[in-house]
Protein backbone atom coordinates (compact mmCIF):
# COMPACT_ATOMS: atom_id res chain seq x y z
CA UNK A 1 0.00 0.00 0.00
CA UNK A 2 1.37 3.38 -0.96
CA UNK A 3 1.29 6.21 1.55
CA UNK A 4 0.41 9.22 -0.55
CA UNK A 5 0.79 12.81 0.57
CA UNK A 6 -2.21 14.74 -0.72
CA UNK A 7 -1.24 18.41 -1.11
CA UNK A 8 -4.45 19.37 0.70
CA UNK A 9 -4.94 16.65 3.29
CA UNK A 10 -1.50 15.25 4.07
CA UNK A 11 -0.53 11.58 4.21
CA UNK A 12 -3.28 9.10 3.47
CA UNK A 13 -3.56 5.45 2.44
CA UNK A 14 -3.53 4.64 -1.26
CA UNK A 15 -7.06 3.23 -0.95
CA UNK A 16 -8.40 6.80 -0.61
CA UNK A 17 -7.06 7.72 -4.04
CA UNK A 18 -7.95 7.08 -7.64
CA UNK A 19 -5.25 6.66 -10.27
CA UNK A 20 -5.38 8.95 -13.29
CA UNK A 21 -2.50 7.67 -15.43
CA UNK A 22 0.14 9.72 -17.22
CA UNK A 23 0.24 13.44 -16.41
CA UNK A 24 0.90 16.29 -18.84
CA UNK A 25 -1.13 14.98 -21.79
CA UNK A 26 -2.76 18.12 -23.13
CA UNK A 27 -6.00 18.04 -25.08
CA UNK A 28 -5.17 18.58 -28.77
CA UNK A 29 -5.07 22.26 -29.64
CA UNK A 30 -6.71 21.80 -33.03
CA UNK A 31 -8.79 18.63 -32.79
CA UNK A 32 -10.25 19.09 -36.27
CA UNK A 33 -6.83 18.94 -37.84
CA UNK A 34 -5.70 15.66 -36.30
CA UNK A 35 -5.04 12.63 -38.47
CA UNK A 36 -6.31 9.19 -37.41
CA UNK A 37 -2.78 8.40 -36.29
CA UNK A 38 -2.68 11.50 -34.09
CA UNK A 39 -6.10 10.70 -32.61
CA UNK A 40 -4.89 7.18 -31.85
CA UNK A 41 -1.90 8.68 -30.05
CA UNK A 42 -4.09 10.98 -27.98
CA UNK A 43 -6.77 8.40 -27.15
CA UNK A 44 -4.89 5.17 -26.74
CA UNK A 45 -1.15 5.75 -26.42
CA UNK A 46 0.38 6.69 -23.09
CA UNK A 47 3.95 6.47 -21.91
CA UNK A 48 4.65 3.27 -20.02
CA UNK A 49 7.87 4.38 -18.39
CA UNK A 50 10.06 2.05 -16.40
CA UNK A 51 11.49 4.45 -13.82
CA UNK A 52 10.45 7.98 -12.80
CA UNK A 53 6.93 8.58 -14.11
CA UNK A 54 4.76 11.71 -13.84
CA UNK A 55 1.18 10.69 -13.16
CA UNK A 56 -2.13 12.08 -11.94
CA UNK A 57 -3.96 11.05 -8.79
CA UNK A 58 -7.36 12.04 -7.44
CA UNK A 59 -7.98 12.12 -3.70
CA UNK A 60 -11.40 10.65 -4.29
CA UNK A 61 -12.50 9.94 -0.71
CA UNK A 62 -10.82 13.06 0.70
CA UNK A 63 -10.71 16.54 -0.77
CA UNK A 64 -11.69 15.24 -4.24
CA UNK A 65 -8.91 17.26 -5.84
CA UNK A 66 -6.51 16.14 -8.57
CA UNK A 67 -2.76 16.50 -8.23
CA UNK A 68 0.39 15.21 -9.92
CA UNK A 69 2.97 12.86 -8.56
CA UNK A 70 6.41 11.74 -9.68
CA UNK A 71 6.81 8.08 -8.78
CA UNK A 72 9.33 5.40 -9.65
CA UNK A 73 7.46 2.56 -11.34
CA UNK A 74 10.06 -0.02 -10.29
CA UNK A 75 10.65 0.82 -6.61
CA UNK A 76 7.25 2.57 -6.28
CA UNK A 77 9.05 5.35 -4.36
CA UNK A 78 7.19 8.66 -4.48
CA UNK A 79 9.67 11.33 -5.52
CA UNK A 80 7.51 14.45 -5.67
CA UNK A 81 3.93 15.62 -5.28
CA UNK A 82 3.07 18.76 -7.23
CA UNK A 83 0.01 20.69 -8.37
CA UNK A 84 -1.88 20.18 -11.60
CA UNK A 85 -0.84 22.68 -14.21
CA UNK A 86 2.74 22.99 -13.02
CA UNK A 87 5.68 21.52 -14.88
CA UNK A 88 7.16 18.18 -13.97
CA UNK A 89 9.95 18.41 -11.41
CA UNK A 90 12.90 16.26 -12.44
CA UNK A 91 13.82 13.21 -10.44
CA UNK A 92 16.12 15.27 -8.23
CA UNK A 93 13.17 17.32 -7.11
CA UNK A 94 14.09 20.46 -9.00
CA UNK A 95 11.66 22.12 -11.33
CA UNK A 96 12.64 21.85 -14.98
CA UNK A 97 12.36 25.17 -16.81
CA UNK A 98 9.16 25.24 -18.77
CA UNK A 99 6.77 27.70 -20.23
CA UNK A 100 4.36 26.44 -17.60
CA UNK A 101 2.04 28.90 -15.97
CA UNK A 102 1.82 28.41 -12.24
CA UNK A 103 5.54 28.45 -11.55
CA UNK A 104 5.17 29.92 -8.08
CA UNK A 105 3.07 26.99 -7.01
CA UNK A 106 5.61 24.62 -8.48
CA UNK A 107 8.42 26.28 -6.60
CA UNK A 108 6.59 26.14 -3.33
CA UNK A 109 6.10 22.41 -3.68
CA UNK A 110 9.55 21.39 -4.65
CA UNK A 111 12.21 23.99 -3.98
CA UNK A 112 15.36 22.51 -2.53
CA UNK A 113 13.64 19.33 -1.59
CA UNK A 114 15.25 16.33 -3.19
CA UNK A 115 12.53 14.04 -1.97
CA UNK A 116 9.46 15.92 -0.85
CA UNK A 117 8.20 14.77 2.49
CA UNK A 118 5.50 12.15 2.23
CA UNK A 119 5.11 11.36 5.90
CA UNK A 120 2.42 13.94 6.43
CA UNK A 121 4.25 15.54 9.33
CA UNK A 122 5.43 18.26 7.00
CA UNK A 123 2.29 18.61 4.94
CA UNK A 124 2.49 22.38 4.78
CA UNK A 125 5.71 22.20 2.80
CA UNK A 126 3.96 20.28 0.06
CA UNK A 127 0.64 22.05 0.30
CA UNK A 128 0.55 25.39 -1.47
CA UNK A 129 -2.67 27.27 -1.01
CA UNK A 130 -5.29 25.94 -3.38
CA UNK A 131 -5.81 29.39 -4.83
CA UNK A 132 -2.38 29.34 -6.44
CA UNK A 133 -3.21 26.56 -8.87
CA UNK A 134 -6.19 24.93 -10.43
CA UNK A 135 -7.02 21.55 -9.00
CA UNK A 136 -10.36 21.12 -10.68
CA UNK A 137 -9.50 21.13 -14.35
CA UNK A 138 -6.49 18.94 -14.97
CA UNK A 139 -5.03 19.38 -18.41
CA UNK A 140 -6.01 16.54 -20.69
CA UNK A 141 -8.27 14.89 -18.15
CA UNK A 142 -9.40 11.82 -20.01
CA UNK A 143 -10.50 9.57 -17.18
Amino acid sequence: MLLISCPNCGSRDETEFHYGGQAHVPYPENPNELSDRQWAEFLFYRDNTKGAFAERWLHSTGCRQWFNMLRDTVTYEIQAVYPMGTPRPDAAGRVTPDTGTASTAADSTTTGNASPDISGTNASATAPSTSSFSTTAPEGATK
Partner: protein
Amino acid sequence: MSTQQLPEHPDFLWRNPEPKSSYDAVIVGGGGHGLATAYFLAKNHGMTNIAVLEKGWLAGGNMARNTTIIRSNYLWDESAAIYEHALKLWEILPEELEYDFLFSQRGVMNLAHTLGDVRESMRRVGANKLNGVDAEWLDPKQVKELCPILNINDNIRYPVMGATYQPRAGIAKHDHVAWAFARKCDELGVDIIQNCEVTGFVKDGDRVTGVKTNRGTINTEKVGLCAAGHSSVLAEMAGFRLPIQSHPLQALVSELHEPVHPTVVMSNHVHVYVSQAHKGELVMGAGVDSYNGYGQRGSFHVIEHQMAAAVELFPIFARAHVLRTWGGIVDTTLDASPIVGNTPVENMFVNCGWGTGGFKATPAAGMTFAHNIATGTPHRLNKPFALERFETGALIDEHGAAAVAH
Protein backbone atom coordinates in the same frame (compact mmCIF):
# COMPACT_ATOMS: atom_id res chain seq x y z
CA MET B 1 26.99 -35.73 4.40
CA SER B 2 28.25 -37.90 1.62
CA THR B 3 27.47 -36.92 -1.93
CA GLN B 4 26.83 -40.55 -2.77
CA GLN B 5 23.46 -40.31 -1.06
CA LEU B 6 22.25 -37.70 -3.51
CA PRO B 7 20.16 -39.04 -6.40
CA GLU B 8 21.31 -38.65 -9.98
CA HIS B 9 20.52 -35.28 -11.50
CA PRO B 10 17.46 -35.69 -13.73
CA ASP B 11 18.05 -35.30 -17.45
CA PHE B 12 18.39 -31.71 -18.59
CA LEU B 13 15.48 -30.72 -20.80
CA TRP B 14 17.46 -28.31 -22.95
CA ARG B 15 21.08 -27.34 -23.63
CA ASN B 16 22.38 -24.00 -22.42
CA PRO B 17 24.26 -22.91 -25.56
CA GLU B 18 26.38 -19.82 -26.02
CA PRO B 19 24.71 -17.33 -28.37
CA LYS B 20 25.84 -17.59 -31.99
CA SER B 21 26.80 -14.45 -33.89
CA SER B 22 23.77 -14.67 -36.13
CA TYR B 23 20.36 -16.32 -36.46
CA ASP B 24 17.55 -16.36 -39.00
CA ALA B 25 15.20 -15.13 -36.28
CA VAL B 26 15.52 -14.04 -32.67
CA ILE B 27 12.64 -14.23 -30.19
CA VAL B 28 12.93 -11.87 -27.24
CA GLY B 29 11.43 -13.33 -24.06
CA GLY B 30 11.53 -16.90 -22.77
CA GLY B 31 8.02 -17.05 -21.35
CA GLY B 32 5.28 -19.28 -22.71
CA HIS B 33 4.63 -17.13 -25.76
CA GLY B 34 8.29 -16.85 -26.78
CA LEU B 35 8.81 -20.61 -26.41
CA ALA B 36 5.59 -21.50 -28.24
CA THR B 37 6.52 -19.10 -31.04
CA ALA B 38 9.95 -20.70 -31.42
CA TYR B 39 8.39 -24.16 -31.37
CA PHE B 40 5.95 -23.35 -34.19
CA LEU B 41 8.62 -21.50 -36.21
CA ALA B 42 10.69 -24.67 -36.14
CA LYS B 43 7.85 -27.14 -36.54
CA ASN B 44 5.52 -25.40 -39.02
CA HIS B 45 7.97 -23.23 -40.93
CA GLY B 46 11.20 -25.20 -40.79
CA MET B 47 13.05 -22.29 -39.18
CA THR B 48 15.48 -24.00 -36.83
CA ASN B 49 18.41 -21.57 -36.89
CA ILE B 50 16.67 -19.39 -34.33
CA ALA B 51 17.17 -18.34 -30.71
CA VAL B 52 15.01 -17.42 -27.75
CA LEU B 53 16.73 -14.77 -25.62
CA GLU B 54 15.62 -14.55 -21.99
CA LYS B 55 17.02 -11.94 -19.62
CA GLY B 56 16.37 -14.04 -16.53
CA TRP B 57 15.49 -17.71 -16.31
CA LEU B 58 13.08 -19.57 -18.49
CA ALA B 59 9.44 -18.87 -17.53
CA GLY B 60 10.52 -16.60 -14.68
CA GLY B 61 8.12 -13.89 -15.86
CA ASN B 62 4.34 -14.19 -15.94
CA MET B 63 4.47 -17.70 -17.34
CA ALA B 64 5.12 -19.39 -14.01
CA ARG B 65 3.28 -16.74 -11.97
CA ASN B 66 -0.20 -17.06 -13.43
CA THR B 67 -3.19 -18.92 -12.02
CA THR B 68 -3.20 -21.24 -15.07
CA ILE B 69 -6.84 -20.81 -16.08
CA ILE B 70 -7.58 -21.93 -19.64
CA ARG B 71 -10.93 -21.16 -21.34
CA SER B 72 -12.21 -19.75 -24.61
CA ASN B 73 -15.59 -18.24 -23.74
CA TYR B 74 -14.88 -14.73 -25.03
CA LEU B 75 -17.59 -12.52 -26.50
CA TRP B 76 -16.49 -11.35 -29.94
CA ASP B 77 -15.91 -13.52 -33.02
CA GLU B 78 -12.25 -12.52 -33.33
CA SER B 79 -11.48 -13.49 -29.74
CA ALA B 80 -13.58 -16.66 -29.72
CA ALA B 81 -11.70 -17.77 -32.85
CA ILE B 82 -8.20 -17.38 -31.45
CA TYR B 83 -8.93 -18.55 -27.89
CA GLU B 84 -10.93 -21.55 -29.10
CA HIS B 85 -8.10 -22.45 -31.45
CA ALA B 86 -5.80 -22.33 -28.44
CA LEU B 87 -8.12 -24.60 -26.45
CA LYS B 88 -8.17 -27.14 -29.29
CA LEU B 89 -4.35 -27.04 -29.34
CA TRP B 90 -4.22 -27.56 -25.55
CA GLU B 91 -6.28 -30.70 -26.11
CA ILE B 92 -3.65 -32.23 -28.40
CA LEU B 93 -0.42 -30.69 -27.09
CA PRO B 94 0.41 -33.11 -24.26
CA GLU B 95 0.67 -35.85 -26.88
CA GLU B 96 2.38 -33.70 -29.49
CA LEU B 97 4.99 -32.42 -27.02
CA GLU B 98 5.21 -35.84 -25.37
CA TYR B 99 4.85 -34.28 -21.96
CA ASP B 100 1.99 -34.60 -19.50
CA PHE B 101 1.65 -31.11 -18.10
CA LEU B 102 -1.57 -32.01 -16.25
CA PHE B 103 -4.04 -30.22 -18.48
CA SER B 104 -7.25 -30.80 -16.56
CA GLN B 105 -10.56 -29.96 -18.24
CA ARG B 106 -12.48 -29.56 -15.02
CA GLY B 107 -14.64 -26.69 -16.30
CA VAL B 108 -14.68 -22.98 -15.50
CA MET B 109 -17.58 -21.08 -13.97
CA ASN B 110 -17.95 -17.31 -14.25
CA LEU B 111 -20.33 -16.14 -11.54
CA ALA B 112 -22.99 -13.47 -12.02
CA HIS B 113 -23.87 -11.33 -8.99
CA THR B 114 -25.97 -8.51 -10.42
CA LEU B 115 -28.69 -8.18 -13.02
CA GLY B 116 -26.11 -6.56 -15.29
CA ASP B 117 -23.82 -9.57 -14.84
CA VAL B 118 -26.70 -11.93 -15.62
CA ARG B 119 -27.54 -10.15 -18.86
CA GLU B 120 -23.92 -9.91 -19.95
CA SER B 121 -23.34 -13.58 -19.11
CA MET B 122 -26.41 -14.83 -20.98
CA ARG B 123 -25.47 -12.76 -23.98
CA ARG B 124 -21.98 -14.25 -23.88
CA VAL B 125 -23.31 -17.82 -23.63
CA GLY B 126 -25.40 -17.12 -26.73
CA ALA B 127 -22.45 -15.66 -28.60
CA ASN B 128 -20.24 -18.58 -27.57
CA LYS B 129 -22.73 -21.13 -28.86
CA LEU B 130 -22.91 -19.38 -32.21
CA ASN B 131 -19.12 -19.58 -32.38
CA GLY B 132 -19.01 -23.28 -31.54
CA VAL B 133 -17.60 -22.66 -28.06
CA ASP B 134 -19.14 -24.92 -25.41
CA ALA B 135 -21.09 -22.73 -22.99
CA GLU B 136 -24.00 -23.10 -20.62
CA TRP B 137 -25.95 -20.85 -18.32
CA LEU B 138 -26.37 -22.28 -14.81
CA ASP B 139 -28.92 -21.17 -12.25
CA PRO B 140 -27.78 -20.97 -8.60
CA LYS B 141 -28.96 -24.51 -7.81
CA GLN B 142 -26.96 -25.92 -10.72
CA VAL B 143 -23.98 -23.86 -9.58
CA LYS B 144 -24.24 -25.50 -6.16
CA GLU B 145 -24.50 -28.97 -7.66
CA LEU B 146 -21.29 -28.50 -9.62
CA CYS B 147 -19.42 -26.80 -6.80
CA PRO B 148 -20.94 -27.73 -3.42
CA ILE B 149 -18.59 -25.53 -1.35
CA LEU B 150 -19.97 -22.35 -2.96
CA ASN B 151 -22.30 -20.27 -0.83
CA ILE B 152 -25.43 -19.54 -2.86
CA ASN B 153 -27.46 -18.03 -0.02
CA ASP B 154 -29.06 -14.73 -0.85
CA ASN B 155 -28.09 -13.12 2.45
CA ILE B 156 -24.55 -12.29 1.38
CA ARG B 157 -23.45 -8.98 -0.04
CA TYR B 158 -23.19 -10.20 -3.63
CA PRO B 159 -25.40 -13.29 -3.90
CA VAL B 160 -24.72 -15.76 -6.71
CA MET B 161 -27.42 -15.18 -9.33
CA GLY B 162 -26.11 -17.80 -11.73
CA ALA B 163 -23.00 -18.52 -13.76
CA THR B 164 -21.70 -19.22 -17.21
CA TYR B 165 -20.01 -22.60 -17.45
CA GLN B 166 -17.53 -23.91 -19.99
CA PRO B 167 -17.03 -27.65 -19.40
CA ARG B 168 -13.94 -27.97 -21.67
CA ALA B 169 -12.11 -25.19 -19.83
CA GLY B 170 -9.69 -25.92 -16.99
CA ILE B 171 -6.12 -25.57 -15.74
CA ALA B 172 -2.63 -26.89 -16.57
CA LYS B 173 0.73 -26.81 -14.83
CA HIS B 174 2.30 -23.67 -16.25
CA ASP B 175 5.96 -24.40 -15.50
CA HIS B 176 5.65 -27.84 -17.08
CA VAL B 177 4.07 -26.28 -20.17
CA ALA B 178 7.14 -24.06 -20.52
CA TRP B 179 9.48 -26.99 -20.05
CA ALA B 180 7.52 -29.09 -22.54
CA PHE B 181 7.88 -26.40 -25.22
CA ALA B 182 11.52 -25.76 -24.30
CA ARG B 183 12.48 -29.40 -24.59
CA LYS B 184 10.85 -29.75 -28.01
CA CYS B 185 12.39 -26.47 -29.21
CA ASP B 186 15.79 -27.73 -28.13
CA GLU B 187 15.28 -31.05 -29.91
CA LEU B 188 14.40 -29.15 -33.09
CA GLY B 189 17.67 -27.19 -32.83
CA VAL B 190 16.42 -23.91 -31.32
CA ASP B 191 18.93 -22.19 -29.01
CA ILE B 192 17.37 -21.21 -25.70
CA ILE B 193 19.64 -18.63 -24.13
CA GLN B 194 18.98 -17.60 -20.55
CA ASN B 195 20.61 -14.68 -18.72
CA CYS B 196 20.70 -12.84 -22.02
CA GLU B 197 19.08 -9.42 -21.84
CA VAL B 198 18.29 -7.46 -24.97
CA THR B 199 19.55 -3.91 -24.44
CA GLY B 200 19.05 -2.40 -27.89
CA PHE B 201 18.58 -3.05 -31.59
CA VAL B 202 20.74 -2.61 -34.66
CA LYS B 203 18.87 -0.99 -37.50
CA ASP B 204 19.57 -0.21 -41.11
CA GLY B 205 17.15 2.62 -41.77
CA ASP B 206 13.74 1.32 -40.78
CA ARG B 207 14.83 -2.31 -40.86
CA VAL B 208 16.11 -4.26 -37.88
CA THR B 209 19.29 -6.23 -38.54
CA GLY B 210 20.40 -7.28 -35.09
CA VAL B 211 19.91 -7.22 -31.35
CA LYS B 212 22.32 -5.89 -28.75
CA THR B 213 22.56 -7.98 -25.62
CA ASN B 214 24.59 -8.14 -22.43
CA ARG B 215 26.34 -11.07 -24.14
CA GLY B 216 27.20 -9.27 -27.35
CA THR B 217 25.50 -8.23 -30.56
CA ILE B 218 23.62 -10.88 -32.51
CA ASN B 219 22.77 -10.40 -36.17
CA THR B 220 19.38 -11.55 -37.27
CA GLU B 221 16.95 -11.31 -40.17
CA LYS B 222 13.87 -11.11 -37.99
CA VAL B 223 12.95 -10.20 -34.44
CA GLY B 224 9.82 -11.31 -32.56
CA LEU B 225 9.05 -9.50 -29.32
CA CYS B 226 7.39 -11.67 -26.64
CA ALA B 227 8.30 -9.63 -23.58
CA ALA B 228 4.83 -9.28 -21.93
CA GLY B 229 5.16 -6.60 -19.18
CA HIS B 230 8.37 -5.22 -20.71
CA SER B 231 7.05 -4.83 -24.26
CA SER B 232 6.95 -1.01 -24.07
CA VAL B 233 10.56 -0.89 -22.92
CA LEU B 234 11.69 -2.96 -25.91
CA ALA B 235 9.51 -1.02 -28.36
CA GLU B 236 11.06 2.20 -27.10
CA MET B 237 14.54 0.77 -27.76
CA ALA B 238 13.39 -0.04 -31.28
CA GLY B 239 11.92 3.43 -31.80
CA PHE B 240 8.17 2.93 -31.72
CA ARG B 241 5.35 3.15 -29.18
CA LEU B 242 2.81 0.60 -27.98
CA PRO B 243 -0.61 1.38 -26.47
CA ILE B 244 0.23 -0.68 -23.39
CA GLN B 245 0.25 0.04 -19.68
CA SER B 246 2.11 -2.33 -17.36
CA HIS B 247 0.51 -3.14 -14.02
CA PRO B 248 1.32 -5.43 -11.10
CA LEU B 249 -1.00 -8.45 -10.84
CA GLN B 250 -0.91 -10.72 -7.81
CA ALA B 251 -1.81 -14.29 -6.98
CA LEU B 252 -1.45 -16.50 -3.92
CA VAL B 253 -1.74 -20.05 -2.65
CA SER B 254 -2.86 -21.70 0.57
CA GLU B 255 -1.31 -24.72 2.25
CA LEU B 256 -2.22 -28.16 0.88
CA HIS B 257 -5.77 -29.40 1.45
CA GLU B 258 -7.81 -32.47 0.69
CA PRO B 259 -9.60 -32.07 -2.65
CA VAL B 260 -12.57 -29.80 -1.89
CA HIS B 261 -12.91 -27.73 -5.04
CA PRO B 262 -13.82 -29.69 -8.17
CA THR B 263 -13.84 -26.95 -10.79
CA VAL B 264 -12.59 -23.39 -11.38
CA VAL B 265 -14.68 -20.48 -10.12
CA MET B 266 -14.19 -16.91 -11.25
CA SER B 267 -16.08 -13.85 -10.15
CA ASN B 268 -15.48 -10.63 -11.99
CA HIS B 269 -17.74 -8.68 -9.72
CA VAL B 270 -16.10 -9.50 -6.41
CA HIS B 271 -12.63 -9.89 -7.93
CA VAL B 272 -11.54 -13.39 -7.18
CA TYR B 273 -10.83 -16.59 -9.08
CA VAL B 274 -10.08 -19.90 -7.44
CA SER B 275 -9.04 -23.39 -8.34
CA GLN B 276 -7.37 -26.19 -6.43
CA ALA B 277 -4.03 -27.35 -7.77
CA HIS B 278 -3.31 -31.03 -8.25
CA LYS B 279 -1.13 -31.06 -5.15
CA GLY B 280 -3.93 -29.51 -3.08
CA GLU B 281 -3.17 -25.80 -2.72
CA LEU B 282 -6.01 -23.38 -3.27
CA VAL B 283 -4.79 -21.07 -6.03
CA MET B 284 -6.32 -17.61 -6.14
CA GLY B 285 -5.82 -14.56 -8.28
CA ALA B 286 -6.56 -10.94 -7.52
CA GLY B 287 -7.18 -7.81 -9.55
CA VAL B 288 -4.44 -5.54 -10.88
CA ASP B 289 -3.06 -2.69 -8.83
CA SER B 290 -4.42 0.54 -10.24
CA TYR B 291 -1.05 2.18 -10.88
CA ASN B 292 1.55 1.47 -13.54
CA GLY B 293 4.24 -0.76 -12.10
CA TYR B 294 7.26 -2.78 -13.15
CA GLY B 295 7.97 -4.17 -9.67
CA GLN B 296 6.86 -7.79 -9.47
CA ARG B 297 4.79 -7.00 -6.39
CA GLY B 298 1.53 -5.26 -5.59
CA SER B 299 -0.28 -3.84 -2.60
CA PHE B 300 -1.59 -5.93 0.25
CA HIS B 301 -5.00 -4.26 0.29
CA VAL B 302 -5.69 -5.85 -3.09
CA ILE B 303 -5.12 -9.28 -1.55
CA GLU B 304 -7.19 -8.42 1.52
CA HIS B 305 -10.09 -7.46 -0.73
CA GLN B 306 -9.78 -10.66 -2.70
CA MET B 307 -9.65 -12.81 0.48
CA ALA B 308 -12.79 -11.15 1.82
CA ALA B 309 -14.61 -12.07 -1.38
CA ALA B 310 -13.23 -15.62 -1.35
CA VAL B 311 -14.31 -16.28 2.23
CA GLU B 312 -17.80 -14.97 1.61
CA LEU B 313 -18.22 -17.15 -1.48
CA PHE B 314 -16.48 -20.20 0.03
CA PRO B 315 -17.11 -20.17 3.80
CA ILE B 316 -14.82 -23.20 4.38
CA PHE B 317 -11.84 -21.16 3.15
CA ALA B 318 -12.00 -19.23 6.42
CA ARG B 319 -9.85 -22.00 7.92
CA ALA B 320 -7.22 -21.88 5.19
CA HIS B 321 -4.07 -19.77 5.33
CA VAL B 322 -2.29 -17.63 2.80
CA LEU B 323 1.04 -19.36 2.37
CA ARG B 324 2.68 -17.40 -0.43
CA THR B 325 1.81 -14.37 -2.50
CA TRP B 326 3.63 -13.03 -5.55
CA GLY B 327 3.15 -10.65 -8.43
CA GLY B 328 3.77 -10.44 -12.14
CA ILE B 329 3.83 -7.50 -14.54
CA VAL B 330 0.91 -7.57 -16.95
CA ASP B 331 0.75 -5.64 -20.22
CA THR B 332 -2.77 -4.24 -20.50
CA THR B 333 -4.48 -2.61 -23.48
CA LEU B 334 -7.52 -0.37 -23.44
CA ASP B 335 -9.78 -2.92 -25.13
CA ALA B 336 -8.53 -5.89 -23.08
CA SER B 337 -7.39 -7.62 -26.28
CA PRO B 338 -3.85 -8.51 -27.34
CA ILE B 339 -1.62 -6.97 -30.00
CA VAL B 340 -0.11 -9.52 -32.41
CA GLY B 341 1.38 -8.45 -35.71
CA ASN B 342 3.76 -6.24 -37.63
CA THR B 343 5.38 -3.10 -36.21
CA PRO B 344 6.55 0.17 -37.78
CA VAL B 345 10.04 -1.40 -37.84
CA GLU B 346 10.59 -3.68 -40.82
CA ASN B 347 11.26 -7.33 -39.88
CA MET B 348 10.28 -6.69 -36.29
CA PHE B 349 7.06 -8.24 -35.00
CA VAL B 350 5.26 -7.88 -31.71
CA ASN B 351 3.16 -10.19 -29.57
CA CYS B 352 1.97 -8.46 -26.40
CA GLY B 353 -1.00 -6.94 -24.62
CA TRP B 354 -2.31 -10.27 -23.37
CA GLY B 355 -2.47 -8.60 -19.99
CA THR B 356 -4.08 -10.64 -17.27
CA GLY B 357 -5.14 -13.51 -19.49
CA GLY B 358 -2.55 -14.71 -21.98
CA PHE B 359 -1.59 -18.07 -20.53
CA LYS B 360 -4.68 -19.72 -22.02
CA ALA B 361 -3.70 -18.36 -25.43
CA THR B 362 -0.10 -19.59 -25.37
CA PRO B 363 -0.36 -22.24 -28.13
CA ALA B 364 -2.44 -20.09 -30.50
CA ALA B 365 -0.35 -16.99 -29.87
CA GLY B 366 2.75 -19.03 -30.69
CA MET B 367 1.22 -20.61 -33.80
CA THR B 368 -0.11 -17.36 -35.28
CA PHE B 369 2.88 -15.26 -34.32
CA ALA B 370 5.25 -17.81 -35.86
CA HIS B 371 3.22 -17.62 -39.06
CA ASN B 372 3.40 -13.82 -38.99
CA ILE B 373 7.17 -13.83 -38.44
CA ALA B 374 7.91 -16.51 -41.03
CA THR B 375 5.71 -15.12 -43.80
CA GLY B 376 5.76 -11.43 -42.93
CA THR B 377 1.94 -11.32 -43.01
CA PRO B 378 -0.53 -12.09 -40.25
CA HIS B 379 -2.32 -15.39 -39.87
CA ARG B 380 -6.11 -15.16 -40.32
CA LEU B 381 -6.52 -15.57 -36.55
CA ASN B 382 -4.19 -12.75 -35.46
CA LYS B 383 -5.03 -10.30 -38.25
CA PRO B 384 -7.77 -8.49 -36.27
CA PHE B 385 -5.31 -7.98 -33.40
CA ALA B 386 -2.89 -5.78 -35.35
CA LEU B 387 -1.66 -2.45 -33.98
CA GLU B 388 -3.65 -0.63 -36.69
CA ARG B 389 -6.91 -1.23 -34.87
CA PHE B 390 -6.14 1.69 -32.57
CA GLU B 391 -6.15 3.93 -35.64
CA THR B 392 -9.07 2.42 -37.51
CA GLY B 393 -11.14 2.19 -34.34
CA ALA B 394 -11.88 -1.50 -34.88
CA LEU B 395 -11.30 -2.28 -31.22
CA ILE B 396 -12.16 -5.70 -29.81
CA ASP B 397 -13.64 -4.84 -26.43
CA GLU B 398 -13.39 -7.89 -24.19
CA HIS B 399 -13.80 -6.19 -20.83
CA GLY B 400 -16.88 -8.30 -20.13
CA ALA B 401 -15.20 -11.62 -20.83
CA ALA B 402 -11.73 -10.65 -19.70
CA ALA B 403 -13.00 -8.59 -16.78
CA VAL B 404 -10.88 -8.21 -13.72
CA ALA B 405 -8.17 -10.72 -14.53
CA HIS B 406 -7.82 -14.44 -15.02
